[in-house]
């Protein structure tokens, strides 16, 4: 079915309580805010009442794509927005797979899911057709198997996305993720728990439309497309992300001394561990396939093949397991794993049950240290002994986080900020703004990123990157804060278009303007884009403040000041001062 670019401004509203849906043209939003993060934050403002319980019927889920989706290479991401059950404020998570292409070519710029179902359901969205289907028979099934089942019963093979939750989402583990195309995730901030609270097991969306490029624009469109394609293929993105994948930087990060190891006992693991977990070693031993998101030639997704004996008598199983930089950190380094094989086995457990790998790893790392220090005992753990690198016990702990046999596991299911507030050990509970920390211990910028970033994600303002650029240079706190803020504001444009951050160097302001112009979206300028980035960033921050986020009350775990970074030891007073400067810059004086 043919449709025009502007028809993609449609928003599909789904009401799970009434099992009803409607489609509205929201040209007003897409004209002003492009799409993705920009449109999603506006829809969140409209649909999420102040102060709602994130796991209640009133919390909406918003999926949004953008004007470049399905039209240009590497514009391959979907933004999910909701109120986070983990942090209690802004929930925003991005994924690729086929999700963005499927939503756009089903004919939507965004999908808003409201209400809550009385029985388990999954949504089957095939173009304009929206069906609520009974998911009782797949409730309780792991995320991987759900995909396998729905692949068989729903149409649209090859041109659809299947977004689903595992058991962790059903049980509303606060850091449960939503899995997409088996190996991609809306990982962070608990979208899986929100879906679980709505009894929404899965969303299948298939494409049945294509977008018409106006005749007079076709030549221009192809020229701009080819320019972007050439740059995507020729920049370092290809080499950096395709060959070894994001795992390629593991060894160097450890060598630099910016890699949190064993709950940040140090920022560098022993040489043999770094070699074991290096992208080179994992690729040589386990890499079985590289895949990409729809409409991206890079292919950064790396899949490992793990063959294991699981019963005597030559009974082997072979599992395909996705691996990347962040999970090597969280489930490998943070947990003191000794072998890549154990790390892969743990990812498999986490993925099947459907939890965010970073939050899981950081929470387990805190629990291990707390157990070693005697704050947590076998009485809490239901008899389990926590030790670094014990993949068997960690797998059992993950099962118990979902089964919640006692109060300790109920608390563990609420994340490290919460569990440490109950049992102590906050000095080494590595969460920032309520979100478990990403990999980096590279300097002050990465922690300012974690503390002030709207999502408390390393991708908010890439502080880890700035830290590395600043090594050996003199700088003021104000310069660092200004650079981070500028980066985060600009990234709002990328996540509104929506292009993958890995292609951020390809999508310069100049190319974005050309790309929009060639599909009939005119009159954007670099200045207008920069202004919009600021507006979207402030809107996201306003949502956070509205929901209780407070710069003055940010907890900073002492541990980060006890371990040297590549810039030396950090000082709490510097970090506090920088947060103050940040507050002034965004008009929120502390």
């Amino acid at each position, binding site marked *: 079915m043919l449709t025009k670019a502007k028809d993609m401004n449609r928003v599909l509203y789904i009401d799970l309580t009434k099992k009803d849906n409607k489609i509205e043209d929201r040209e007003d939003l897409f004209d002003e805010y492009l799409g993705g993060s920009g449109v999603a934050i506006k829809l969140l403002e409209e649909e999420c009442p102040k102060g709602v319980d994130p796991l209640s019927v009133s919390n909406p889920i918003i999926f949004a794509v953008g004007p470049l989706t399905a039209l240009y*290479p590497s514009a391959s991401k979907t933004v999910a927005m909701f109120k986070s059950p983990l942090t209690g404020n802004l929930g925003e998570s991005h994924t690729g797979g086929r999700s963005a292409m499927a939503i756009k070519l089903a004919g939507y710029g965004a999908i808003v899911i409201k209400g809550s179902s009385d029985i388990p359901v999954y949504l089957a969205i095939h173009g304009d057709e929206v069906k609520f289907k009974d998911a009782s028979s797949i409730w309780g099934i792991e995320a991987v198997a759900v995909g396998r089942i729905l692949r068989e019963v729903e149409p649209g093979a090859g041109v659809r996305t299947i977004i689903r939750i595992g058991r962790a989402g059903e049980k509303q583990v606060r850091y449960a993720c939503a899995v997409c*195309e088996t190996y991609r995730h809306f990982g962070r901030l608990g979208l899986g728990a929100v879906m679980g609270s709505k009894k929404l097991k899965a969303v299948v969306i298939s494409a*049945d*439309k294509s977008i018409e490029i106006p005749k007079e624009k076709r030549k221009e469109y192809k020229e701009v497309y080819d320019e972007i394609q050439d740059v995507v293929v020729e920049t370092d993105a*290809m080499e950096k992300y395709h060959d070894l994948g994001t795992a390629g930087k593991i060894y160097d990060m450890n060598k630099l001394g910016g890699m949190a190891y064993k709950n940040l006992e140090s920022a560098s693991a022993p040489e043999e561990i770094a070699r074991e977990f290096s992208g080179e070693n994992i690729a040589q031993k386990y890499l079985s396939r590289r*895949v990409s998101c729809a*409409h991206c*030639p890079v292919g950064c997704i790396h899949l490992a093949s793990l063959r294991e004996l699981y019963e005597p008598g030559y009974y082997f199983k072979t599992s395909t397991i996705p691996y990347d930089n962040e999970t090597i950190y969280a489930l490998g380094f943070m947990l003191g794993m000794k072998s890549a094989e154990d790390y892969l086995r743990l990812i498999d457990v986490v993925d099947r049950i459907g939890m965010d790998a970073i939050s899981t790893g950081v929470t387990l790392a805190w629990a291990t240290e707390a157990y070693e220090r005697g704050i947590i005992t076998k009485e809490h753990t239901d008899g389990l002994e926590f030790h670094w690198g014990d993949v068997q016990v960690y797998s059992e702990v993950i099962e118990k986080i979902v089964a919640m046999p006692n109060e300790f596991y109920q608390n563990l299911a609420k994340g490290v900020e919460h569990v440490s507030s109950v049992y102590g050990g906050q000095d080494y509970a590595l969460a920032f703004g309520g979100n478990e920390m990403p990999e980096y211990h590279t300097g002050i910028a990465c922690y300012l990123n974690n503390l002030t970033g709207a999502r408390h994600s390393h991708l908010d303002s890439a502080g880890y990157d700035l830290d590395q650029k600043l090594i050996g240079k003199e700088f003021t706190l104000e310069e660092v804060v200004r650079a981070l803020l500028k980066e985060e504001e600009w990234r709002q444009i990328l996540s509104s278009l929506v292009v993958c951050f890995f292609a951020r160097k390809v999508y310069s302001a100049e190319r974005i303007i050309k790309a929009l112009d060639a599909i009939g979206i005119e009159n954007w300028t670099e200045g207008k884009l920069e202004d919009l980035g600021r507006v979207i960033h402030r809107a996201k921050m306003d949502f956070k403040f509205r929901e209780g986020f407070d710069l003055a009350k940010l907890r900073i775990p002492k541990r980060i000041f006890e371990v040297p970074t590549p810039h030396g030891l950090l000082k709490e007073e510097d970090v506090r001062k920088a947060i103050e400067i940040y507050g002034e810059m965004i008009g929120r004086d502390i």
Partner: protein
Amino acid sequence: MAKKLAALDVNKCIGCMECMFACSRRVGRGGFDKSAVRVRSAGGIERGFVIVACRACENPPCAKVCPTGALRERKGGGVILNEDKCIGCGFCAQACIMGAIFWDSERNKPIVCKYCGECANYCVHNAIGMVEVKAEA
């Protein structure tokens, strides 16, 4: 020499679908509803991908079942569609056990590969490419 599209090495396919997008882009569309090449997983991404494209058969079954002569054999293999003669019966699509004849539901006509190679131009990983028909015969 006549050329045709070929899956050179399906193991190199990363499932990016750029070939599908390229094919529809030829007619000014973003999407793949006019595409004569398709990529899908072989029953789960861990099993790799299946590339479905016209093999430009010698003695093509699709042309044999066309009741109006709209599909005629191309010299060297494959077919050429004369849309004016096509009544949209769909026999050709049924006859292709490769599933390489797709359907244009807007116009009720088959989508048949034109062997232009535009899709292959965008296959960065060389999973598909153009080959001379004779070379493989």
